[in-house]
């Protein structure tokens, strides 16, 4: 929550800082590595890491005379993504060569798709500040990833590892439909959730499985024509996207206010310095001379194949969110956060059904579970206990075996020990104490040790009563049955007054 608030603040600040009001126009290009086992045109593994050049063969390193053969799963995953994002699936598409010289690309061309991509004209609905906005998807096409270059400042050469070369990618291109950093962030979050639900990519931004290029321009509010846009490459975290968008919009407005002209160019974002700088690529470099890839035959996706893939689609985040609101009675906001991660939603749903108390489960997940995950730098996938264990914990509170305060302590222990909550409660003796004799002793002790508060209570200060209850809970280390303490304390005090 606090993150969202600070973004809005930045947005307001820059609106206030200039005289004329500007609006930004954002379009995104998202590159996603598909989670196939093997590469797009050869049988080398797509595993991340590995010693340099150990996941390579003559095909993915572009040796002369080799023939690429398309991985069928790549087509299926691209079609799946297209169907999940409301695209039209091309019955006929082809692959093309995109020519440019750069050593991360050993063939001196990248196999991609030019005029006949596999998917077109889709959309995703995003939620920003409680409002739904539809973001258009222009196209989705398949292509191959490039190798990794390592530059050493002291060396005169560049070293190349081609393990990533030939890993299948889809590129998702949006319409220029976003107008703030929050909208760009919401789009990437929604897209990532969809891709994880349909299981076509792990979407690990820190490992480069999901990379975002931002196309951004600004214009005075009310102007119809677009301003000149710049492109920022390879933003690999949501935080970078937000910061880069805010920074680039500010930069462009400053240039215009200065009476200068925005140059259409590619810029590189420096996350450490928090600024972008021009990559000064020569104009010639953009003459890609696309032509049909002669080694690869056209892709024809007929109605039968398309429907088979459509039937394999799971429930998508939007549908799941609506169901959680209707079936489990979750508030819109809670449902949105939980369904934003497939792992979190799966965990929630399992625990909600097993405990038959969705609201209590949702409160735990959005509260203490999320807090602990954040503190430990873990993802929902890494929760070390089962949904059944969380359901048991909820059950222990419902039955009155433990209090809510104790439940928080039990949850902390569930993250550290491989034990179910019932075992933890039993071993640590955390059950609520409801024995009237035991509690009556506690109450007597508290009253005799706090004569000033007892005096205050007699004079009609309600606060004093709360203080005494607190003392009794402290005495029992939070384990006393609060209702019983209330009853006994009241009886004892009133008895004394009389």
């Amino acid at each position, binding site marked *: 929550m606090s993150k969202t608030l600070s973004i809005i603040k930045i947005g307001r600040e820059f609106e206030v800082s200039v005289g004329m009001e500007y609006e930004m126009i954002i379009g995104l290009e998202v590159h996603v590595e598909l989670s*196939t*086992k*093997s590469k797009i045109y050869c*049988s*080398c*593994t797509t595993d991340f890491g590995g*010693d*340099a*050049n*150990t*996941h*390579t*063969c*003559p095909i993915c*390193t572009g040796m002369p005379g080799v023939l690429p*053969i*398309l*991985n*069928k*799963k790549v*087509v299926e995953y691209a079609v799946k993504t297209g169907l999940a994002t409301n695209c039209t699936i091309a019955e006929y598409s*082809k692959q093309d060569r995109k*020519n440019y*010289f*750069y*050593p991360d690309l050993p063939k001196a061309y990248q196999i991609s798709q030019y005029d006949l991509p596999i998917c077109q004209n889709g959309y995703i609905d995003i939620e920003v500040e409680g409002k739904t906005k539809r973001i258009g998807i222009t196209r989705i096409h398949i292509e191959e990833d490039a190798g990794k*270059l*390592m*530059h050493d400042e002291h*060396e*005169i*050469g*560049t*070293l*190349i*590892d*081609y393990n990533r070369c030939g890993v299948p990618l889809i590129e998702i291109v949006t319409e220029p439909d976003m107008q703030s950093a929050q909208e760009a962030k919401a789009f990437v979050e929604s897209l990532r959730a969809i891709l994880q639900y349909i299981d076509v990519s792990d979407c690990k931004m820190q490992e480069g499985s999901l990379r975002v290029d931002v196309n951004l321009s600004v214009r005075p509010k009310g102007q119809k024509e677009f301003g000149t846009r710049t492109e920022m490459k390879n933003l690999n975290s949501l935080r970078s996207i937000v910061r880069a968008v805010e920074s680039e919009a500010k930069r462009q407005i400053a240039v215009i206010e200065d009476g200068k002209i925005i140059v259409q160019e590619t810029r*590189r974002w420096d996350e450490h310095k928090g600024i972008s700088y021009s*990559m000064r690529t020569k104009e*010639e470099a953009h*003459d890609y*001379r696309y032509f*049909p890839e*002669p080694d*690869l*035959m*056209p*892709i*024809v996706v007929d109605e039968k194949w398309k429907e088979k893939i459509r039937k394999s689609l799971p429930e998508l985040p939007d549908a799941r969110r609506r169901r959680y609101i209707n079936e489990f009675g979750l508030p819109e906001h809670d449902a949105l956060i939980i369904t934003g991660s497939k792992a979190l939603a799966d965990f929630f749903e399992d625990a909600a059904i097993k405990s038959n108390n969705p609201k209590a489960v949702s409160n735990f997940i959005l509260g203490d579970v999320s807090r602990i995950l954040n503190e430990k730098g873990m993802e929902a996938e890494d929760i070390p206990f089962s949904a059944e264990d969380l359901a048991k914990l909820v059950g222990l509170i419902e039955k009155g075996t433990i209090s809510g305060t104790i439940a928080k302590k039990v949850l902390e222990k569930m993250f550290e020990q491989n034990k179910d909550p019932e075992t933890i409660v039993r071993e640590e003796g955390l059950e609520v104490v409801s024995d009237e004799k035991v509690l009556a002793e506690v109450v007597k002790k508290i009253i005799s040790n706090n004569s000033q508060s007892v005096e205050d209570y007699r004079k009609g200060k309600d606060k004093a009563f709360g203080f005494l209850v607190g003392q009794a809970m402290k005495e029992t280390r939070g384990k006393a049955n609060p209702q019983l303490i209330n009853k006994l304390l009241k009886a004892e005090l009133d008895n004394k007054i009389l």
Partner: protein
Amino acid sequence: MRVNKKTLEHVANLARLNFTDKEKEKLMLDMENIISYIDKLNELDTSEIIPTDHVIPIKNIFRDDEVLDSYPKDKMLMNAPSKEDGCFKVPKVVE
């Protein structure tokens, strides 16, 4: 089509080729001849014909998503003009 010096230099630059002025004069003529030869095709009416992406009428040539052994690293680097730390080495490229 007239091939001027600018067009020739643009194409040469894309192909990373360097020519002397004398070579450029000759190549401009060559390119012009090639283009006018190809231009002959424009005389045909192709307005009713679907663009030919491939001459062979086959489609959907796929392989299954199966991992097979990659090549040994040493073998992959055997032809590399320069190598270091198991990597291919090229003159430094700066973005």
